[in-house]
């Protein structure tokens, strides 16, 4: 769906993209993570031909739309017809209503009038803006504007949905609704490229995560694999509670007592079975065991460090 090879973008003396490589297959929800200034928005703007990288290649839907500093305009326009894009910071035309906005954007895609009207109704109902379809956008709250931004991205029933920090400014209810919409879009077979710095959102809705730091992709994998790999490197942390004190002097692991018969055991691998055996060999019994899973945030912070 998206293939980016060795993409380089330099702004004056800042190397925003430093040989970025990216490969996103069909039908996945891809979380694109990175700290501020890592190159997330630059990547997205490059994919859409809104900025000009100096080097590299971009392939969309199997067509090479960019190569070594030049976009193929006709291929890019064809590709954009199948893309829905929700920008991070954008104000829609304040003097238009949601219906008029979607009508204008539908026209830009060359959609016939009946199709535009049908899609506009469908999408506005989906994002809960149908009730205010005739209200001027200038009077909208931040959350309503975000939902309209999503609506305009969906009007052409895109195969690829590019969302740049989509949940910024939404209240918890709005976030929950937004996630639901993303899940529905995934079920409908769309590929979703989701850029965010709010890791909890990415963790909940994405299948695969790519982490970009200083214009380079430093990690790309499924969330499960990333966690497993992180645990492998940082060590498993297991909290156990036993029915009687245990002597850990012969254990190979790093053990810290936490209170009465409670211990934190850190090991390089998943040692739950060995732990049972060790405690049993001491004539004790494990009452509770808790494997402390790292959050994506911990992994992310560790990677960025």
């Amino acid at each position, binding site marked *: 769906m998206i293939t980016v090879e060795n993409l380089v973008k330099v702004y004056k003396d800042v190397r925003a993209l430093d040989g970025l490589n990216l490969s996103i297959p069909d039908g996945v929800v891809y979380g694109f993570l990175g700290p501020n200034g890592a190159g997330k928005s630059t990547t997205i703007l490059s994919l859409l031909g*809104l900025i000009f990288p100096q080097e590299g290649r971009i392939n969309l839907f199997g067509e090479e739309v960019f190569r070594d500093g030049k976009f193929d305009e006709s291929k890019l326009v064809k590709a*954009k017809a199948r893309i829905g894009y929700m920008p991070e910071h954008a104000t829609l035309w304040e003097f238009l209503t949601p219906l008029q906005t979607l009508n204008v954007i539908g026209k830009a895609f060359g959609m016939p009038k009946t199709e535009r009207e049908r899609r506009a109704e469908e999408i506005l109902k989906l994002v809960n803006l149908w009730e205010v379809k005739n209200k001027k956008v200038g009077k909208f709250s931040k959350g309503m504007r975000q939902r309209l931004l999503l609506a305009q991205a969906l009007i052409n029933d895109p195969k690829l949905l590019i969302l740049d920090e989509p949940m910024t400014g939404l209240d918890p209810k709005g976030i929950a609704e937004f996630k639901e919409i993303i899940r529905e879009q995934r079920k409908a077979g769309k590929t979703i490229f989701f850029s965010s710095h709010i890791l909890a959102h990415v963790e909940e809705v994405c299948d695969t995560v790519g982490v970009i730091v200083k214009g380079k992709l430093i990690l790309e994998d499924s969330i499960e694999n990333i966690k497993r790999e992180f645990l492998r490197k940082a060590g498993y942390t297991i909290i156990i509670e036993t029915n009687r004190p245990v002597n850990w002097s012969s254990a190979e692991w790093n053990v810290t007592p936490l209170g009465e018969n409670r211990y934190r055991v850190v090991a390089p691998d998943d040692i739950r079975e060995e732990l049972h055996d060790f405690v049993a060999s001491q004539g004790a019994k494990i009452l509770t065991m808790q494997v402390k899973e790292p959050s994506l945030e911990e992994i992310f912070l560790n990677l960025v460090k």
Partner: protein
Amino acid sequence: MKQGNVTSEKEAIAVIINHVINMALLFLGILAIVFGAGAVNKEIEDGTIRIALSKSVTRLEYFLGKFLAQGLVLFLAIILTSAVTVTGLKWVGVGVGKIFTDVVLLNLLLLLVMLEFIAIGYIMSAFIRSSGTSLGVALAVFFVIYLVIPAYVDYKIYVANEKMPREELGKIKEEYYTKYLFFSPVAQLEVITDSTMKEVTKRVVSSHGVYESISYEYVGLWNAMKTRAVNVMLMLAMTLVYLGIATWRFLRMDLR
């Protein structure tokens, strides 16, 4: 445009048209350059350009479409101005039928002037990132083009040709405006509208003797445009040059 005492219906037409042109040039000219000055950078600041260009349109289509749409808005304003002109002429008793062709031609010339100002504004908008700065620069450029440089050229004409007869001075002005103010749509329009008035010298015999009376005759805008075709072409060419520069920049700029 030359002015004098209103002694005939044709002169009345010329005087009213002259006033309307001046008003239209000042107010619509400012509006045109302001339109142009915020066309790209303001949309980048608001993010609307990223939404528009993420759809299946090319940069060129977007840019020229916007230019033409703004031109259309100004054309409607010009038509409104024409309605004022026609009302004014009716007020002094001139039938609309007599000036219909001139009103249409004048509208088209004013549209060309406005398109040239929009294109100048587009250059500011494409080269200056901040819409506020670009607006300030555009207004300064407008007053330099509209007032300062023409006043300087007029001064030069006067200084260089102080002792020249008035009718010769008019020809020199046309030459100077064409040569040194080719970039200014206002100056080119002035040369064309000046040519709508033809000087007529009559021998008058009275009880006091025989003397020459000079008056001006309105020859119509179409004749003036034919006489000053080079100035019409200059306006067209410069509009394309300004638009070309702005387009060249827009097609290469990062829209972030």
